[in-house]
């Protein structure tokens, strides 16, 4: 059994202390990193509860329940930040990515403690693949926010729709990486290549 709340305290403690010490411009990033880790703990509890309630096995839970819970919970801190502080789009996009990174980091640590750290190749693939998937979902939501936030009537419907897209992408990734053989690598390489496509072709165009 993995005591994720103990791991959470252990990981978050130094970051939490650093929040009070680092420069103001860095503070926001650290807070969102911690928020991402907190989201991971919360979504683990909610997913387990829902899986129990729907009598789903672990495979079904991993591709049908946890993507939905994780993406919605991950979006909540940024949604709160955007609504309460009425921040600029750029700042929110940065926040979404930091939450995604925090989430992926904590998930990887939990994976390490459960499955051990002996197989380096597996861990590299897992680390980059899952990290890339969470970042791709973050980018998807941030691109959606970038285009759909400006008009009020488009905002709630558009954001709900973009969240739906992120959930489906997450679920597809979970199914592919759980498949035996080469598929785990294919899934990871695919998400990493999506990030590369974004960096090479889309980022500059979007920032224009």
């Amino acid at each position, binding site marked *: 059994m993995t005591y994720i709340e103990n791991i959470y305290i252990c990981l978050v403690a130094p970051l939490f202390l650093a929040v009070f010490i680092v420069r103001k411009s860095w503070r926001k990033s650290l807070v969102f990193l911690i928020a991402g880790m907190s989201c991971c703990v919360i979504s683990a509890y909610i997913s387990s509860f829902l899986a129990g309630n*729907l009598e*789903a096995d672990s*495979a*079904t839970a991993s*591709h*049908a*329940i946890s*993507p*939905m819970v994780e993406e919605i919970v991950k979006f909540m801190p940024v949604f709160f930040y955007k609504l309460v502080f009425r921040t600029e789009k750029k700042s929110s996009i940065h926040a979404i990515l930091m939450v995604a990174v925090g989430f992926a980091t904590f998930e990887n640590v939990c994976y390490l403690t459960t499955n051990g750290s002996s197989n380096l190749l597996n861990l590299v693939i897992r680390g980059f693949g899952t990290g890339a998937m969470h970042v791709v979902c973050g980018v998807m939501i941030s691109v*959606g926010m970038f*285009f*759909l936030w400006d008009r009020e*009537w*488009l905002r709630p*419907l*558009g954001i*709900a*729709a*973009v969240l*739906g*897209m992120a*959930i*489906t*992408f997450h*679920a*597809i990734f979970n*199914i*592919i990486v*759980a*498949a035996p053989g080469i*598929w785990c690598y294919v899934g990871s390489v695919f998400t990493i290549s999506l990030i590369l496509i974004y960096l090479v072709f*889309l980022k500059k*165009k*979007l920032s224009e």
Partner: protein
Amino acid sequence: MFEIIETLIQLIVIVICMIHALVYAIAKRRDLWTLMAFFYGSYALGVSYWLVCIVFLGETPKVSMVSDFSWYTTYLFLFLVFREAFAMHGYVEAVSKKPIMFVIPVIAPIFTFSMAIFYMRFGAVISNVIYALLMGMLLYGLIYVLLNFKVVKSKSFRALCLVAFLFCVSEYGMWTASCFFEGTGISNPYYWFDIMLTVTVPVFIPIIRLEIKTQTAPVKNRNKWEVAE
């Protein structure tokens, strides 16, 4: 096997449309292209999820929350495309204001909710209610415009509404057929409607292109793209 090939062809068609819409959204900076890119994107993700489940798990999803999410998203984006085009034309003022024209489209939500009650015999309650709500909203708008066909001048907007209506009809055809037929061959009517959907989806692209042309054309030149009353 037929199911996999048919779904794969549909996925390829949608992905090509998505890439086209995405390129135009980035190059032209028009909201309609952005919404179309999201519409195709969410539809492609839904189809991919279905395909991945069939290929890797050997069955359709047991808990269909995720695929439902992507279908909700697709209908939502199609509604947003319709609303955006409707608002851009300023038809809110132009179309008929006779009360009967607002009352007749109410058959759309009545139909969607009746069908939802029927589908509840086979599936979940909440997802059917959400589908009925989204489809009811979309079909209400489409029927409203189709009833005002003579008042609506733009050819492209008429075409957009017609194709969106066909899209909804093929969706309902698929859902209803899947309640009565179980085979996975071409003899199953489900696949007829699915093929109809695959044919309908790319038709949006030229229509949206024409629609944007109409919107960006100077007022005095608009007659070129619009049909006279």
